[in-house]
Every structure is written in C-alpha cells, then in structure tokens.
C-alpha cells in the first residue's frame, strides 16, 4: 500500500536476505585479522555475575607472571571496579562500560584493542558483561570462548542457558573449594553440560584456593604456543 494516499499500486517487496548480525560479524572478522597480524591471542570470558571471572583473571595474571604478557578488556554496564582490581594485579586494562547494554560487541572490542595496543605474542582476556544470555550471540573476534560457572550457581545452569554453554570451547567450574558446603553434584553438572555441548573442555578449579588452577594455566600457555 502506498504510504501517502493508501493506493495499492506502489508497494514493492525488496529482498534483502541479509544476516541481522552482519555488521557485528564483519567487525569481529576485522578484530580477528588485527589480532592475527600482531600475533595476539584473544580469549572471551563469559559467565553470570559473581561466578569469579575477575578473581580468576587476577589469579591468572599472577600465575603467568608476565610470560606470556597479558592485558585485559573489562566489560561492565557501569563502574571501573573490576578494571581497578586488574590494574592492581599489575596488568594493562581498558574498561568498557556498556551502559544499558547487556553484552560487549565487536565494535566496542575494536575500540578497546586500539587503546590497549597489546604487544606481539601476548594474550588479551576479554571479560564480558556478567550475563549468561546475550554475550553468546556476539562474536568479538576472539580465538577461544570460555564460560565460567561456579558450584554456588547450581548444576542445572547448562540446561537453563544452553546457548551460552553451547558456545563455549572450555567451561571452567569455579569455587570447587566450596563443594563440601553446597548442594552441587559435579557428575550431574557434567551430564547437563554434555547434553548441550559434549565437545567443551571442562576445568574444575578454585580461583581463590588454587586447586586446579595449574590445569587452566597450562591450557592458556598451550593456546599461546
């Protein structure tokens, strides 16, 4: 129908056949090339709020001890608390505040990478906004996607948030030091994870206590080699 008078003659269907996320995916591809040119490994860390992403990062920075060099893109809706923690751990960091946004997108990461200027042969960890839904959809140009969950969150998380767990290369099960105090059955969790992503690696660790952290560190070093 014509938009001016309502006549039926003028309406034309214009096929577009375009991916909705084409713009993000193009920017992500550009990030991927930018990172590859500099031989920088980017890892996207995703989880719900409070699963221990920042604590694991602090531990990782300490354990790696500069070999390889690490820098961090911190995504949060508001505040720079996490960036300050990472900086205090002795690491280069750029904070991205998404405001109302619930995830990082490839454009935000492109800007952050420019500011960060990570050195060659280093690792960039991107700490995504704490959210088990939205970040799963947005390719940032990372090489690996890690989903962190913790034993205080319940073993059914992979079934409740299948898109997020399906997107992971590796799942880190954090806060295992609390297992004696919570009602969390690791085998049930693994069974649930297998239902949505049988290919994902699984590392059980305690970022504060240190148990299992060496497996994670070896994995990151292996990715870097």
């Amino acid at each position: 129908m014509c938009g001016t008078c309502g006549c039926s003659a003028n309406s034309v269907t214009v096929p577009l056949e375009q991916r909705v996320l084409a713009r993000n995916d193009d920017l992500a591809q550009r990030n991927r090339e930018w990172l590859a040119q500099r031989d920088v490994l980017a890892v996207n860390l995703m989880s719900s709020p409070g699963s221990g992403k920042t604590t694991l990062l602090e531990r990782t920075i300490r354990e790696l001890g500069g070999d390889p060099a690490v820098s961090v893109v911190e995504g949060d809706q508001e505040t720079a608390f996490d960036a300050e923690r990472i900086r205090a751990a002795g690491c280069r960091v750029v904070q991205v505040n998404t405001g109302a946004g619930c995830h990082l997108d490839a454009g935000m990461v492109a800007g952050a990478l420019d500011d960060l200027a990570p050195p060659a042969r280093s690792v960039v960890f991107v700490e995504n906004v704490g959210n088990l839904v939205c970040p799963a959809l947005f390719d940032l140009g990372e090489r690996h996607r890690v989903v962190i969950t913790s034993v205080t969150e319940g073993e059914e998380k992979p079934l409740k948030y299948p898109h997020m767990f399906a997107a992971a290369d590796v799942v880190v099960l954090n806060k295992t030091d609390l297992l004696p105090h919570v009602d969390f059955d690791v085998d049930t969790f693994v069974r649930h994870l297998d239902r949505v992503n049988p290919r994902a690696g699984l590392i059980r660790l305690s970022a504060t206590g240190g148990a299992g952290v060496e497996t994670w560190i070896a994995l990151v070093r292996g990715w870097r080699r």
Partner: protein
Amino acid sequence: MHEVSIIQEVVAAIAARSGDARITVVRLEIGKLSGVVADAVRFCFDLVAEGTVVEGARLVIEEPAGRVLCRDCAAEYEAESLVVLCPACGSAYAEVLSGRELRIRSVEVSPSCAVPAVAPRTP
C-alpha cells in the same frame, strides 16, 4: 535483553539500503535455535523503530523450527530448543543442522505517491 540490539541492527541495515522510501513491512527470519526470542523482538520493535525509516512498519517474523542430527544413531529430528533428546534412541548428543537463522528477508517499500495523504479542500 539483546533483542533491542538485534532490532537496532535490523533498523541500521534497512536504513543503509532504503534511501527515502517509506518501509511498510519488515520481514525477518528468526530460527527457534537462534537464541533470539521472536516475541521479545515483536514487543520492542515499535519502540526501537520510532523515529527511524521503519517507524510504523508492520513486522512479520518467520520462525523456522530447528533440525538436529543425532550423533549416536544419525536420526534427524525437529527441535524447539538446544536441549534435546533423540526420539529414536534417547541420546542427547546432537548436531544442529538448521534453526539458527537470524536474517532480514525483505522489506516492503512504498515510494511516495503524487497524491497528498490529505487532499486540500477549499471551503
């Protein structure tokens, strides 16, 4: 609520290709396994569309079901979510074949007509 971002991407993509034409219909394809909730897109569309080239456009969404392949027995079946069990053998090991579509199919455009919307009248 990534559906708002999704609509913003849709609006930007259409605006980049539509010029001044008025868009009357927007047709999207949102697969059941895409991670985007069609109802949430419908809910926010008018709000995000306000003041853009698609303001007032009718939104039509196709929602193709998912097809998955059982990795254990090779049966192919339909899926409404990523949490599946093979109806043939009960296995949860599955590979998504389709259902992740997230596309702008087409728009309906109505070029401005020579006749003004409200014809002037002299008293």
